[in-house]
């Protein structure tokens, strides 16, 4: 009957709270609260040298820290395995030409470019980590403000990089094509979106689909110890695309609404 334990339908998300600009030392930050899952993402922009095989582009570096706050098992190096797995998934979903315009991060080819360090902090684990993290990463990239730089050339040919004095003079990234992950867990004969911890424990296999706002799938991965048959994979992929498009439209509208409140809006953070 399309009814789950907490009253949701199979394709309904829990209530999502998104807030950007929560940490001030960063170029951009976002906090996402999806049920009991709490994620904080900070983006820091630093200048560095471009990679050898892509001299005209900047790049993104992901780092996921599973904090001991979530569960005592993450103390010390306990959270490293999960952190590496999530970071590798993030690298894969961003590993295509259209997600982020990397050419806009280039300052001077082969010499200087912007490197965006995206740091994810997992504060509380309430199921459905991948979705929440991808929403938070998209919100943080939307909030990122990279200072505008100018390259000045001397007579001798040595280059000098000048940062603009105005703190509001910065470039923003276009997050139109940044994908979000939709996790579909197979429970019995049906599949559900946004599983809680209990539902994840009941499901044998899940499919992670990374979808952009236009419905384009950038990455797909099956996780879990069980097996899936091909028809369910196609069904789950179609559900993932449908749910993903709706997720993107609501996320975009919320981000634009928050932005329109201007810099004087009341910041709640963890105090609310």
């Amino acid at each position, binding site marked *: 009957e399309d009814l789950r334990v907490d009253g949701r339908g199979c394709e309904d998300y829990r209530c999502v709270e998104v807030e950007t600009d929560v*940490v*001030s*030392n*960063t170029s951009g*930050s976002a906090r996402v609260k999806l049920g*009991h899952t*709490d994620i*904080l993402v*900070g*983006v*820091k922009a*630093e200048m560095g040298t471009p990679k050898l095989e892509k001299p005209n582009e900047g790049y993104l570096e992901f*780092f996921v*820290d599973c*904090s*001991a*706050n979530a569960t*005592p*098992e993450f*103390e*010390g*190096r*306990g959270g490293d*395995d999960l952190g590496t797995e999530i970071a590798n998934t993030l690298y894969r979903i961003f590993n295509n030409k259209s997600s982020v315009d990397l050419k806009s991060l280039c300052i001077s080819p082969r010499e200087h470019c912007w490197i965006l*360090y995206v*740091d994810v*902090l997992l*504060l*509380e*684990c*309430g199921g459905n980590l991948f979705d929440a993290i991808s929403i938070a990463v998209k919100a943080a990239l939307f909030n990122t403000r990279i200072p505008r730089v100018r390259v000045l050339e001397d007579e001798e040919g040595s280059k000098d990089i000048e940062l603009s004095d105005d703190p509001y003079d910065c470039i923003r990234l276009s997050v139109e094509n940044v994908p979000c992950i939709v996790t579909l867990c197979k429970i019995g004969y049906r599949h559900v979106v946004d599983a809680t911890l209990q539902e994840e424990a009941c499901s044998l296999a899940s499919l992670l689909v990374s979808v952009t706002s236009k419905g384009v799938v950038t990455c797909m991965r099956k996780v879990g110890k069980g097996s899936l048959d091909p028809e369910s994979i196609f069904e789950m992929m179609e559900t993932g695309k449908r749910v993903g498009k709706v997720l993107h439209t609501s996320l975009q509208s919320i981000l634009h609404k928050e932005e329109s409140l201007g810099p004087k809006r009341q910041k709640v*953070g*963890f*105090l609310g």
Partner: protein
Amino acid sequence: TGRPPARAGRPGGSPGAGGASGRKSRRGRGAAGMAGLELLSDQGYRVDGRRAGELRKIQARMGVFAQADGSAYIEQGNTKALAVVYGPHEAIGLRAAPPQIRGSRARALPDRALVNCQYSSATFSTGERKRRPHGDRKSCEMGLQLRQTFEAAVLTQLHPRSQIDIYVQVLQADGGTYAACVNAATLAVLDAGIPMRDFVCACSAGFVDGTALADLSHVEEAAGGPQLALALLPASGQIALLEMDARLHEDHLEQVLEAAARAARDVHTVLDRVVRQHVREASVLLGD
């Protein structure tokens, strides 16, 4: 716990700060060459406009996470810290390398609870990006200091053979991170319902131009003067932890200690109010 002697650390820091009683030092000159940055102006105002003994604005909230036994969040100026408490629960063996041996009673103490602390600061918390959130020497040392502080305050005899985990996460570091962590951890332990002897309130203090400053911000810490971190149990006036780096003449120690103690008592007033507010809200929800 008595009063441990002040550990006057290595003679580092700047030559100008904390001079001998005969020589009045001029503005705290930083090792990084922040010449001209006045830490204390002639009218007695600091860089951010505070007076010498004034604290930054403190806002706190208990019960931030529903899944942990106790949690709290505190903002002291621009320093933001989260603390989460799990326990008391069964003592787990040391996780040296995977797989973890759960249920090993190797570290459990027969007559009291084990207090286990971890200090972690997010990679984006400081101005320069940190490579590792925890596991480096400073974080381990902070964890040990937190453990020492809370072993003095928590009534561990009531929970023998068990373990209390206190995990502190710094989200934004703008000076006084140890103090913010201790204050957040106190609130989290209270939120978890673990009995404590008293609140543990902490504050940092410094010494510039013959005046003791309370609650240092990052700019004041980076200037290189002496810094004192104090954790106090306010009702009895007992000191749980006292730590100081850099050179300070012993004549000035009394003054700096007094400033830190006064600031810690002010922090206690704020935390007390937060706890009462939280209890009032919780009892309203329960329909009392």
